[in-house]
């Protein structure tokens, strides 16, 4: 049943790439456990799995970035040892990473030239770059510096750079994570075209609808092992999710009859210059968030979400106190500690290094945000019992799994650490909770727990602001959704009006014409 050739299409041929028993061991941890995968020409092959399932490890081994501990890789039927990415590239394997490796201060053409192995002259590279980008409908201006480009354009550089090697096999790691729905559609057209040219594509994703739409084959990994290879078009999103998670995914549900109360977080015409080079300037941001309400902020990464979080949390202060009002008090000039004392709580995007000190114990990380307002400190002395109690309560309420009572933050899995961080703040009974990417890189079980906790907090009367790039997540929990683009925040749309199309347009920087908005509501 696990034989990938059961569909009969490829019998008698050799696959372009085949791994047999591919295993990668890190210490006691098996990141990849005897994985067999076949990639055929003219195929878009999805690699599905939750975070930590071993997808990245597998593609890194195929791209020569890491050496497998055991197992073999066959390229066109012959065993190969890929000692490094340049060898993989020379054989015709290309890769587009999720995190771009581009120099901000260099131009598009310079970045591409740096990434190529050959001895081509810079002029030839520029010319070929323009030709490739035209052929595949990936418009790029070779002379622009990278820092001026949007995330979608930066991804195009990476794709064009990979295509200029004329690869037979292209690996894409979660390419749509940073794209608007419209940009994703354009990318799919390019991928279909590459497939039609006879190339193979390995497409890493956890977005199931996308995979069903685009991919011919799907291999599902869970806990480092291959679970199944199947035709995603014959599966449902739910059945794929079951294979990924290994069980049913709990649905979150909002309590009926949630009442909105008084405004608890108000932002008035907040404008803030960026704190660092190439940062985003916040431009005239205004919104009002009532108790009992969840406001979602959508947008492609790097459009000012980080800057907005820093301004709301008080990590960066604004000159005019009235721009941020927490619980009726002007707070723009208050420090993060003073804002916490007003009843605000914050969960940043980065779990390790921002939300927690990685090499400190959970009890110390409870103290990190609880020292000001949670009775953990008396006359300058730490009440260790109180900090441990917070850890225990968080563990119990949010099902945080850990090896011992009080381990280092870095030793927890992403999902469990995120549950701890969100739980730590929720147990303080905040009036206002500002959360950035609450379930980024978190397994489905933990994500459900966290989303439910946010809904319950709103039901209990708190005002919740959620920034997320995952539109499905926002649709699931938010009452209203606003979109950030280039430091501007759109007017919030009620969840019933916020269609993917409309949000996608806003994420791409278009403004909704009044008629268009009306039209979309009718659609």
């Amino acid at each position, binding site marked *: 049943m696990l*034989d*990938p*050739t059961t569909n009969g299409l490829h019998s008698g041929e050799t*696959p372009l790439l*085949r791994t*047999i*028993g591919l295993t990668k061991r*890190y*210490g006691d*941890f098996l990141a990849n456990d005897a994985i*067999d995968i*076949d990639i055929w020409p003219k195929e878009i092959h999805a690699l599905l799995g939750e975070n930590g399932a071993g997808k990245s490890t597998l593609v890194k081994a195929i791209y020569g970035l890491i*050496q497998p*501990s*055991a*197992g*073999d890789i066959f390229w066109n039927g012959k065993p190969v*040892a890929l000692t490094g990415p340049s060898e993989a590239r020379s054989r015709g394997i290309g890769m587009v990473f999720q995190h771009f490796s581009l120099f901000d201060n260099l131009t598009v053409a310079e970045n591409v030239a740096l990434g190529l192995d050959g001895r081509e002259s810079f002029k030839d590279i520029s010319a070929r770059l323009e030709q490739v980008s035209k052929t595949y409908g990936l418009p790029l201006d070779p002379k622009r510096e990278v820092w001026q480009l949007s995330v979608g354009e930066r991804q195009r550089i990476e794709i064009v750079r990979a295509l200029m090697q004329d690869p037979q096999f292209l690996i894409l790691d979660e390419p749509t994570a940073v794209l608007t729905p419209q940009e994703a559609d354009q990318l799919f057209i390019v991928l279909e075209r590459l497939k039609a040219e006879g190339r193979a594509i390995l497409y890493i994703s956890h977005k199931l609808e996308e995979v069903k739409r685009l991919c011919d084959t799907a291999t599902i990994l869970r806990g480092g092992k291959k679970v199944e290879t199947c035709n995603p078009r014959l599966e449902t999103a739910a059945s794929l999710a079951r294979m990924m998670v290994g069980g049913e995914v709990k649905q979150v549900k909002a309590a009926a009859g949630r009442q909105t109360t008084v405004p608890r977080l108000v932002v008035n015409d907040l404008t803030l210059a960026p704190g660092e080079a190439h940062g985003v300037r916040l431009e005239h941001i205004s919104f009002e968030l009532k108790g009992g309400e969840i406001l979602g902020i959508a947008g492609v990464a790097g459009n000012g979400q980080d800057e907005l979080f820093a301004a709301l*949390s008080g*990590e960066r202060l604004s000159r005019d106190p009235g721009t941020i009002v927490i619980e009726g008090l002007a707070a723009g000039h208050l*420090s*993060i*500690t003073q804002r*916490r004392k007003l009843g605000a709580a*914050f969960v*940043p995007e*980065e779990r390790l*290094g*921002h*939300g*927690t*000190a*990685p*090499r*400190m114990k959970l009890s*110390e990380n409870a*103290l*990190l*945000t609880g*020292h*000001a307002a949670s009775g953990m*400190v008396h006359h*300058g*002395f*730490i009440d260790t019992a109180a900090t441990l109690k917070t850890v225990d309560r968080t563990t119990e309420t949010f099902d945080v799994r850990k090896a011992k009572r009080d*381990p*280092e933050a*870095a*030793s927890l899995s992403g999902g469990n650490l995120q549950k701890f961080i969100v739980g730590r703040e929720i147990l303080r009974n905040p009036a206002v909770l500002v959360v950035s990417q609450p379930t980024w890189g978190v397994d489905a079980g933990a994500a459900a727990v966290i989303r439910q906790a946010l809904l319950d907090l709103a039901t209990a009367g708190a005002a919740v602001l959620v920034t997320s790039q995952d539109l499905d997540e926002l649709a699931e929990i938010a009452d209203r959704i606003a979109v950030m683009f280039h430091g501007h925040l759109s007017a919030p749309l009620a969840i019933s009006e916020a269609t993917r199309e409309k949000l996608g347009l806003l994420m791409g920087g278009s403004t909704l014409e009044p008629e268009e908005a009306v039209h979309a509501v009718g659609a």
Partner: protein
Amino acid sequence: MQLVLEKRAERSNTIALISPLIAIGLTIVTMVILFAILGKNPLLALHAYFIAPLTDSYSLEEIAVKATPLVMIAIGLSLCYLANAWNIGAEGQFLIGAVAGSWIAVKTQGTDAGVWVLPVMLVLAAAAGALYALIPAICKVKFGASEILTSLMLVYVADLVLDYLVRGPWRDPHGFNFPTTAEFDPVATVPLLIEGGRLHLGSIVALLVVAAAAILLGRTIKGFEIRVVGAAPRAARFGGFNSNQSVILTFAVSGALAGLAGIIEVAGPVGHLQPGISPGYGFTAIIVAFLGRLNPLGILIAGLFLALTFIGGEQAQITMKIPLDVTKVFQGILLFYVLACDSLILYRFKLVFPNRQVARGTG
């Protein structure tokens, strides 16, 4: 087959405790080789360094006397290093403290000034050390100047100030032109613990400093602030802690402790101000701080150990004609091994055998 460093899931507390011992072991092995190259009997040399000083009471007392400034300075430095502030200039703060405290001693010389003299000397020395340490701290916070360079360079400034004073305005008129002040009056001298011995009140002060640091770091929110600012700066800012404040505070405290150690050394074992009052205490204390794992109790033990190498070095020079500089070589090698062994806390060694044989199955 190859040897690789592999990351551990969680830091190993066992290794954290024994890594200084591994470092000492490796240092001794290296020293044995070095002694052999110098043509000395390694076993006798090791005996002179590490065993002989422990066998007579004079040397034991002397170890405690030498450990006193090392421990006091290293405690202050450990606060800086925990907060990710790199004070390399404790030697200068030590000297400036000695100079500032000596000022009172010199000015009250022979005036029967009263018992207030010593306390004022101590306070003034601590204040001067703190202010001197604040120069690099403020330059770092305000202008982003590297505190490593500025604090180090100020050592030589302090050295020259001291030199100028004892050769010029403060020189003992009856001192046969030697660059030194007159012997301090009894009221300007740190009392001895045992009459006729060498052990003085400063050792008690050092123990109090160790206890205070242990409480500060283990029990108070200020100590937590210092640790988290160094360990995870962005998380510290998120927690509402200001890293600049920590830089200023830890530099000031560490300068004060170094200054205090300076005046205690001058008003105690030395008895007058002169050039060369420190055999590099301020630099050796950096080794003490790291060998003690930036932990107050560890620093106490490490301070005694490094003091042993000073005494042992003198012993080896007398009995075996081993150059005194070998002690400095020893300390340098020790720091090198301590820092290298630290990587074992987060990583472990592993032998990797490339394993390519796999059952050839077909699809």
